[in-house]
């Protein structure tokens, strides 16, 4: 295989009050959609902004398309596409003008009409930026990231704050990017997004990468890839007596208990028996495959949504 799109070693960045990135190593292959998944404050955006050349790292090496910032700054800029977490454009610029203008900065560019069609902004092409909805602004930001026909695209929380329909249509655009052979690196704190879009993921927490792999392998690599849920009507009762009887950890959620297991078939009879004996007033039993949320939970002891 040719050189990877992105290779990062030992990236570190401390801000006055917080160690934002604490020794991150990443490698992204060409043509891959790669996700950085983690809760807010995990260091995803800082990592991305260092890669994009917006923030200087304290230490570490970055290779983008085989190039480095120190030597090939301008070439990197002209070959990557970037969507920032919030793209603040001038209030009274229109999508058409913005695409024309930004396109003019690059040696190679895609036509404005084609980009407007790609993100379905033809009807708003001549409206002032300030009058666009959140989803439309986000789509314009995406189109701007593609204006130079980039080989490598960075998307920072591309769907945060969007309604479900707008998220789906953005996902379609990302899939099309992959179809066109671009490499995409995106950050998200939505596990469904990571699962739906990404070929491979790095899960980040507190400035470190705690796991890397495909969504499926991250889940199947778990010691306990299945979850049994007992749901209750209203709040779940105290679970400590039941856990003692079952001889297994029980994690109470708002209205359910979660019991993780490598082998749900073996657990189920014991579980039902313990519930019978303890007179546990549960409503239903569900068995489900673990999710990326569970991966995060099992590795950090905390929930992704906290």
């Amino acid at each position: 295989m040719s050189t990877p799109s992105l290779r990062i070693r030992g990236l570190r960045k401390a801000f006055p009050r917080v160690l934002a990135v604490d020794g991150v190593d990443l490698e992204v292959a060409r043509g891959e959609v790669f996700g950085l998944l983690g809760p807010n404050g995990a260091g995803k955006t800082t990592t991305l902004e260092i890669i994009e050349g917006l923030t200087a790292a304290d230490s570490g090496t970055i290779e983008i398309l085989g190039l480095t910032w120190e030597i090939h700054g301008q070439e990197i800029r002209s070959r990557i596409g970037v969507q920032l977490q919030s793209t603040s454009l001038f209030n009274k610029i229109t999508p058409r003008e913005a695409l024309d203008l930004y396109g003019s900065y690059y040696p190679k560019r895609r036509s404005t009409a084609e980009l407007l069609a790609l993100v379905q902004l033809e009807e708003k092409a001549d409206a002032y930026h300030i009058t666009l909805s959140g989803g439309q602004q986000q789509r314009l930001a995406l189109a701007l990231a593609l204006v130079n026909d980039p080989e490598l695209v960075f998307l920072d929380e591309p769907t945060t704050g969007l309604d479900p329909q707008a998220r789906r249509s953005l996902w379609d655009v990302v899939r099309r990017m992959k179809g066109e052979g671009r490499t995409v690196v995106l950050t998200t704190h939505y596990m469904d997004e990571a699962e739906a879009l990404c070929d491979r993921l790095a899960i980040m927490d507190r400035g470190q990468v705690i796991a890397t792999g495909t969504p499926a392998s991250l889940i199947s690599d778990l010691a306990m890839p299945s979850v049994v849920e007992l749901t209750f009507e209203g709040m779940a009762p105290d679970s400590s007596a039941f856990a003692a009887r079952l001889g297994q950890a029980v994690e109470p959620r708002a209205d359910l208990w979660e019991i993780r297991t490598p082998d749900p078939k073996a657990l189920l009879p014991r579980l039902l028996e313990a519930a019978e004996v303890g007179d546990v007033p549960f409503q239903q039993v569900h068995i489900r495959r673990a999710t990326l949320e569970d991966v995060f939970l099992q590795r950090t002891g905390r929930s992704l949504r906290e």
Partner: protein
Amino acid sequence: MMLWRQFVMEWRLYSRDRVAMFWTMAFPVLLLLGFGTMFRDGGGPRLSLVRVLPQSPSPSDAALGKALVDLQLNVQTLSKAEAESRWSRGETAAQLEPAGAGYRLRLNSYLMAQAGATAGLVNQAYLMAQARLSGAPEPQRIPIQMESPGHKRSASYVTFLLPGLLGLNLVSMGLFSVGMVNVSYREKGKFRRLAVTPLPKWIFLLGQVLHRLTVTVVQAGILLLVGRLAFGIQNQGSFLDLLLIMTLGTGCFMAFGFALSGFAETSEGYAALSNLVFFPLMMLSGVYFTLDAAPAWLQHTVALLPLAPFIRALRAVFNDGASLAGHVLGLAIVGAWALAAFLLAVRRFRWA
């Protein structure tokens, strides 16, 4: 090409902000109309004198009165009480009142220029009145002639004011508006998206400077037109020279603004910083008073600041129709500042 696009886009976005555009264009015009109306009468404000008469005026009081009027003084005769209250309000520059058998002239120490000139005329009038009363020949007077530094007899105060307004407006636009807009846009993250493109900083900055430069030229054009229509003030020199000076000056102070904006983190910080630069520049540039009495080292330093040579050249061309030949050194100083400020601006500029 990139520069041209950047420039055109700046203008397009600017022209959409109607309110800001209106005030940028209208403010100096309003200032000119205001001052122009105040000082409309001929050669600047006339010298005026407050006079308090004794209970029963003598023939010599009457003779002095006539002589004062003959010397073109604007005499206002008031009762003692009225005159005192006017004096206390600080509105009187010079007051002539009876003292013993003769007179006393009180001069307002805060208004020395006017008071001093008035005092000279009053003393002349006194000698004239004495001579007339005694039938002696009137004392010879050295003839006085009002004239602008550029030898134009007709130049009035409004004429003097107009180039000053142009210059001041341009300095404040450079230091306050341009720099402030730059800092606040950076604060709001409006430049971050540009930072990840290959657009060079210097093209972005130069585009902004050129945009502002043309705004100023348009603005100056409007101001000159209003000055001409409302007050009949004409540019005495060549328009090309005027354009050259304005361009150089605008470029210089815009670059100042951009350079300063690289040193401030927030708009509040910028407000403080720009005032810190603006006031010394203003005070030391001989716009309000001359620095004849200042120590030599200060005068030498001040001679290197850009504002004074800029205003001087502007006035010389506009008011006196001078050629640029005598201002090459001054304009070179302005140009050197412009270049240095621009280089500093590019160096200090941060997208975010």
